[in-house]
């Protein structure tokens, strides 16, 4: 008699206790509850100085209010930290719920296979040797798959326990009066210990050191620091995008709940109104990224909130939202916008990132892609802002962009192909970043550029002239501002025109069918990332790592005997043409 060892049906998938929606509602209530402690602290500070009241009685009052103010501010932070811990718990619970569903589905499939195997064994009365060998092989395979399921289930159970432990510790640390009044109320011991380790972000650590610090933390410690210090984790260069995303979503939830409540009460200040508008724009952009479906696979590549700081730059805000997986994508694009760009534009620019993503995938080699809108610099506020006419913001922005890409590079264990794309003033910013010796991008794309800032030719950018690509619509009035030829254009541009022959970059086709007959600042300057344009097609090729395959355009030139000449002026633009300007499917 032959024995076939059929594995037992295990494990019993554990129940997941707790409700993400209920936990999220609790977090929202706690954010709301934190606000009165904040206003108490502010009132104690503001009203310590009651105009016109002087004397001994006043001094006694002032001393009392003076101690109440900081205490209540500490209490505000403690409740907020606990609320954020609840948000993190709720988010994690949601993920665990999804993962449990996956485990349950796997178990059901295994059980179905097991039932089938048992039936086949039952039916195999007088089986041949090969049938028996086949049944044995199936049993071994089933055993191995059950074993994997048990391992994954154990790991899932540990994550469930960790999630509950962390939240329990957060509540406990802020429960007593000492904890409530301390600067770390609501932060777990794991979190404060981890933040004191060498390499922790916020203390001048390099991206590589931050990455090493993160790699050295346990899963519990990572969860603890994310919940307790989301501001620091969310903007820490060197951390995986997923870690930053977790932290930034906590901050976003906090702002939406806290400021939304104040809005309902009619107590929003002017600054908070801007902050709330920025938060909502980030939420909408993130939602757009998460809803986007890759037409080549039918799957959702997901969204990442890589940077979130709605109060930066006098309320303009700093933000970065990505479409695709920034931690694993083979090809990563980072787009820097130009003037007028503010955090409230996040949703709009995230849509542009879906275009870049789609173009790279649709005409790509099958590699995975992520495209990120990065507004980490203080873009000039508009054409009439004097900052638009100077390179100061671009220079500062270039340093910030370079740091961001250093962080991105350090966060990845592999060598992702990285493309930095800049539009308009953002192209000057990108050129400043790329002029640094150790700029982390592999390819640079400048579109609608008023000038390449410090670089007089493409070789001065650290990626080398072979990796500098330029898109210029012949009617783009802004892209005409850069210097070319021996005369130049005086102070109106922001450096050398990168599409010119003298600059020596690869110019790609970027004419728009709606470019109009005269130079303009509308369609011709704004269509570079529009669907089914020549520009987006070529940018997709570059992002996909195939810059050599762009449809090249002849560079503009400036003969001594006349003004600048653009050979693209008379060429008929194309749109939605396969292999030239088709960037995605038309049918949905």
């Amino acid at each position, binding site marked *: 008699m032959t024995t076939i060892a059929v594995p037992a049906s295990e494990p019993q998938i554990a129940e997941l206790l707790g409700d993400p929606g209920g936990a999220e509602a*609790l977090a929202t209530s706690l954010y709301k509850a934190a606000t009165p402690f904040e206003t108490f602290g502010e009132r104690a500070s503001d009203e310590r100085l009651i105009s016109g009241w002087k004397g001994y009685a006043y001094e006694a009052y002032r001393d009392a209010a003076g101690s109440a103010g900081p205490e209540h501010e500490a209490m505000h932070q403690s409740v907020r930290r606990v609320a954020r811990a609840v948000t993190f718990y709720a988010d994690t619970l949601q993920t665990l719920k999804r993962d449990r569903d996956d485990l349950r589905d796997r178990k059901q499939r295994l059980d179905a296979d097991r039932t089938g195997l048992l039936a086949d064994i039952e039916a195999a009365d007088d089986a041949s040797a090969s049938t028996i060998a086949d049944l044995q092989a199936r049993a071994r395979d089933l055993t191995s798959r059950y074993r994997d399921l048990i391992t994954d289930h154990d790991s899932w159970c540990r994550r469930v326990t960790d999630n509950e432990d962390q939240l329990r510790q957060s509540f406990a640390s802020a429960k007593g009066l000492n904890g409530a009044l301390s600067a770390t109320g609501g932060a777990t011991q794991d979190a404060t210990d981890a933040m004191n380790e060498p390499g922790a972000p916020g203390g001048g650590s390099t991206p590589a050191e931050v990455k090493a610090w993160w790699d050295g933390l346990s899963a519990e410690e990572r969860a603890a620091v994310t919940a307790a210090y989301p501001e620091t984790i969310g903007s820490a260069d060197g951390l995986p995008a997923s870690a930053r995303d977790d932290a930034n979503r906590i901050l976003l939830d906090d702002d939406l709940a806290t400021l939304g409540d104040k809005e309902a009460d009619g107590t929003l200040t002017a600054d908070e109104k801007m902050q709330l508008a920025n938060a909502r724009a980030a939420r909408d952009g993130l939602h757009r990224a998460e809803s986007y479906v890759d037409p080549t696979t039918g799957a959702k590549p997901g969204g990442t909130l890589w940077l979130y700081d709605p109060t930066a730059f006098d309320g303009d805000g700093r933000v970065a939202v990505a479409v695709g997986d920034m931690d694993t994508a083979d090809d990563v694009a980072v787009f820097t916008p130009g003037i007028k760009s503010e955090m409230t534009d996040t949703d709009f620019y995230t849509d542009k990132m879906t275009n870049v993503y789609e173009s790279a995938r649709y005409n790509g080699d099958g590699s995975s892609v992520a495209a990120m809108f990065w507004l980490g610099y203080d873009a000039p506020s508009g054409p009439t802002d004097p900052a638009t006419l100077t390179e100061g913001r671009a220079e500062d922005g270039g340093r910030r962009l370079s740091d961001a890409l250093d962080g991105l590079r350090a966060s990845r264990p592999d060598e992702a192909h990285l493309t930095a794309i800049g539009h308009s003033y953002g192209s000057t910013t990108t050129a400043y970043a790329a002029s640094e010796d150790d700029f982390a991008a592999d390819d640079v794309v400048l579109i609608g550029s008023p000038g390449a800032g410090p670089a007089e030719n493409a070789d001065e950018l650290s990626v080398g002239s072979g990796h500098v690509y330029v898109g210029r619509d012949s009617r783009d009035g802004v892209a005409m501002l850069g210097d070319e030829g021996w005369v130049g254009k005086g102070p109106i541009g922001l450096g050398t025109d990168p599409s010119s022959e003298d600059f020596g970059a690869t110019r790609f086709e970027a004419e728009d069918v709606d470019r109009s007959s005269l130079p303009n600042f509308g369609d011709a300057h704004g269509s570079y990332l529009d669907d089914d344009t020549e520009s987006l097609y070529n940018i997709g090729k570059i992002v996909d790592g195939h810059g050599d395959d762009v449809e090249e355009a002849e560079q503009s030139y400036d003969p001594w005997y006349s003004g600048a000449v653009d050979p693209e002026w008379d060429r008929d633009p194309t749109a939605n043409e396969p292999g030239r300007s088709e960037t995605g499917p038309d049918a949905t």
Partner: protein
Amino acid sequence: MSVTGIEYNQMRSASTGWGEQADEMEKTSKELAGLSVSGLAPSVQHVASSFMEAWSGYAHESADIASGFADAISTTADHINDADQVSKSWLDRLDGHLGPTR
């Protein structure tokens, strides 16, 4: 102390502000006490409930502090005002004239 004085309306306004703050803290105290922790896993619910209870108490205490500030400012303003009225009645009796009109 070399200077003493009050601006009555400012003190009244500050007192009213602290009164409102006290109401807000009392409301928060009640809300914290009534928050449901049922969305959390049972292993967290106990400590969460203790937290809510403790913080409901802190908010109540804060309401007392705010209320105390409101009363103290208001009472002080009234005391100073009363003292000023008393002083006024004395000072009304002063005569600053010289000669026969005195």
